[in-house]
Structures are given as C-alpha cells and as structure tokens.
C-alpha cells in the first residue's frame, strides 16, 4: 500500500506507530489499512490470527486492530497465544458482531469498533491506543 503523507490535524510522529491490522476479509485490509496509512500510520496486515502471530513475533507493533471471527486462528486464540508468550500489545477489537464490546472485554482489549464504522472513529480510537514506541 502506498502511504499518503500525513496531513492530519493530530500532532505526533505517527509513522513511528506500527499497526498490525488483522482481518480475514481482503477488502477490509485494503480499505481500513488505507485509511490508517492516509493518517500516516505504518500498517502491516495479516489474514488470520496465526499469520498475525508470526508477523508480531518478528516485528512488534504498538497496536493490533483485530477482527475476532477468522479461520485458522480466531481473535480469542490469538489473544491467548499472546498471553501465553507474555506479550502485551494494546488491542482494538473490530467486529461486525453485536458483541464487539463484550468480546473486547473478554480478551482484555483497549477498545472496540463496531463494523461498519466512521473513519473518524477508527482514527480517534487508534490515536488513543497507539502510543509511539
């Protein structure tokens, strides 16, 4: 994805904020990832929990934006796998299910985004949770 130069009203070096975006829907990865890059964030994408885990072990992000229902490894198993490895990363749960907020609490995430969402809401939550390294 081509990063767009940030013209955000928000201060801060967003490029230093690495985000791992996890969703089994390619269209979501492209469009939501594009919105984040437009704001100057550095975005890596994974199509399920297992792929996310692999990426995360190599390159530690400051925020994981996580879909919950995915094949191979779902959001819950991903969160458990992180915990088992003693890894703590701020997480934002993103789900089209009505239970997004409850699921977020279940895995101890920092927030929830109910799909579909406003770009502003995505950026606001990301801003809040993504503390540059």
């Amino acid at each position, binding site marked *: 994805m*081509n990063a*767009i130069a940030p*013209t955000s009203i928000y201060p801060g070096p967003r490029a230093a904020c690495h985000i791992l975006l996890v969703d*089994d*829907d*390619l*269209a*979501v990865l*492209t*469009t*939501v990832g*594009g*919105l984040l890059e*437009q704001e100057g964030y550095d975005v890596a994408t994974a*199509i*399920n929990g297992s792929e996310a885990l692999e990426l995360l072990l190599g390159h530690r992000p400051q925020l994981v934006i996580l879909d919950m*229902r995915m*094949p*191979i490894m*779902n959001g819950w198993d991903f969160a458990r796998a992180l915990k088992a490895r003693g890894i703590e990363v701020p997480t934002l749960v993103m789900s*089209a*299910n*009505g239970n997004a907020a409850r699921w977020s609490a279940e895995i101890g995430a920092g927030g929830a985004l109910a*799909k*579909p*969402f*406003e*770009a502003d809401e*995505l950026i606001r939550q990301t801003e809040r949770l993504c503390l540059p390294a």
Partner: protein
Amino acid sequence: MALVIADGDRPEVSRAHSALSHLVKVFEPAPIALCILRGPEHVVEVANERQCRIWGRAAADVLGRPLLEILPELHGQALAERLVDVLTSGEPFVATELPVELVRGSQKATAYFDMACTPLRDPSDVVTDVIVVAVDVTDQLAARQRAEVLAEENARLYQGALEMLRLREEFLAMASHELRSPITSMRAGTQLVLRELDRHGHVEPEKLRRLLTIVDAQAGKLTRLITLMLDSSRLEARKLVLDLEEVDLMPLIQTAVDRARADTTRHTFAIDAPATLTALVDSMRIEQVLTNLLTNAVKFSPQGGTITVTAAAPDAATVAIAVTDQGIGISPEHHAHIFERLYQVHPDGHGTGMGLGLFISHEIAALHGGELQVESPPAGGARFVLTVPGRAAAGVAEEAPTP
C-alpha cells in the same frame, strides 16, 4: 335402592349387624363403594348402591353370594389375593389406583380404584369379614394421563418454539454480521477517497480504480447476500420459479471463477472443461450456485491452494460441474445435514455464513431436476458436484458432441 344386608339371621353376626346397619345406611347414598365380604369365600353381606353399580349387578344378584362367583374375572387378580391376605393376616390393605379388570357385558375393561380393605373381627378377635371401601378413580386417572400427555405435548411444542426463536435469533445475528461486513469495506473505501479529495483535491487514478473496484465488488456481495435471504423466503413459500433456456455453461463458470478470484490472493483456479457445454438451465441461478460453491471453496481453504472446476457431459442428458478445493474439508457426519437451511458446519471457528448458501444451491439444483452432492475426496478438501439437464434436454442436435 336400599342398602341390603344379607344373612341377618346368623346369630353371631346379628348384633354386629344392627350396629353396622346404622353405619352402612350412612354409606348407602355415598359416592364411594362399600361392601362387606364374609369368610374365606368373600360372601357379599353388604353392598351399597355405588358398589353394585361398579360390579354391574343388581343388589339382589350379589347378596349372599361369594364374590368370585359374582365376578369370576377376579380369579388370579391382585385384589382377590389381597382380600385373602387381609383375612388371614388381620392387616388392613390400602391401595391407590389399584387396577381391577372387570367384565361389563361382554367387554373386558380395567378400572382403577383407591381402596381400603379393613378386617372386621368377632368378639373373640377372630377376623371374620373384610370391609372394602373403594372409590373408582378410572376417569380421574384417565383425565390425569390425558393432562400429562397434553403437558408433555405442550412442553415439546414450547421447546420447538424456543428452538425456532433461538435459530431465528442466531440467524439474525449471523445475517447482520454478514451484511455489515461488505458495508465496512464500502464505507472505508469511500471515506478513504473522500478524505483524499478533501486533503489533496485529487486521487491518483490507479488508487481510485483499485478502491472503486473493491467498493463495487462489495456492493455485488451485498446484493448476493440480500438475494440469498429473499430466495430463502421464496423457497420456503415455494415461490422460486426458474427461467429455463438453452445456454452455454462455460461463460457462467468463467464469471463465477473471476468473481471468486477477486476475493483471494492465495488461491489458484483451474478449469477443466470443454470449450462449450450446453445445458437447459436458468443461467442466473446456475451462476448463483457456482458463485456460492466457489466462494465457499475460498472461505474454507484459508491456507490457499488450488480450486478446480471440472465440467463435463457424462451423457447427453446430463451436465456435471464439480468444484474441488484443498481446504479444511467437511467431515462425513455433516454430509447428511449440510444442505439443510441454517445448518452450520463450523459454528464457532469460522462462523462466517448464514447457513443459506448451500441450502439454496441444493434447492436450485433440485428445481432444475438435477442434484447437488457433497463428497470428501481421499486427498482432503471438499468437492461439490452439481448436475443439471444437458443438451438432450435442451433439444440440441447430436452433431455437436462434447469432447
């Protein structure tokens, strides 16, 4: 009818009888049956009106006669044995809902009694008689059993209704999830373009094309989901009608494959089929079935792999299209149910799907007079085979044989 006491001239019982006669008079019109049976032969000394009615005999026909002579059917029944016990042991016998088989006219019928059989003793404390008090509870018992059957039936219906509500709720949750997913990308893609315009006054054409392609494809997906839901209702109401025509299936297969290809970067698609393949089908519906089979193949082979579409006409009357993936497969215990409405093979892990696609595809195949079948290839993955009427049904001449 007056309460009748038989054998009142027996000196040893006459005194007792005068006392009893007062007592039994009270019981004559009572809504319970009462009789006094004397000695080991259970000779009927007293029987009130209700008792005679139960026996189906007139008082004159029972008094002074042994019980088993009046009611030979009592031979071998529990009641007859208990009467002997009371007489010999001096212990009373109490029972609820004791079944007694009685012959009424030529009909055998089982009646049920709440009953107390109490020993009567003479002055020397010898048990001489048994006083039997009984209430016919046959009707109450039947009513209670009917009520129990009704209650069970009610509970079953209630459970069924609850189960339907639960399924409906699950379906609504699943449906709203499925509908929101494409909207997420459509909104995110559109907002991305709008924000870009707001900031820079323009969007790179290549980027715009890429995002519009996504939005368009997601809108198509949304349309197909809505069609699925409408089709499901139409099928339930038997209102889904096919528009049959002679068509070449190959362009339909190609369109469905192209559509599935747009959803994935990790699958290769192979088509093994003749150049043309004529069938008598509703082309929109068959494309819908193929799209469903192919998107399922992508969805349930998350590691990627090859998805193969094989199409052939095994005979002039049939066209068979098989979609084979190398995914997680479908274990055989699901084969019998996989085409049921709202059935979920992967209720937790994958959790994607409304449980409508395969149901509708199967029904569409059946409406064509064809079939949709599931197989588990030995090599793994899943295979779905759709058969529809071929060129013989389409009335195409034999000079265009399929290779």
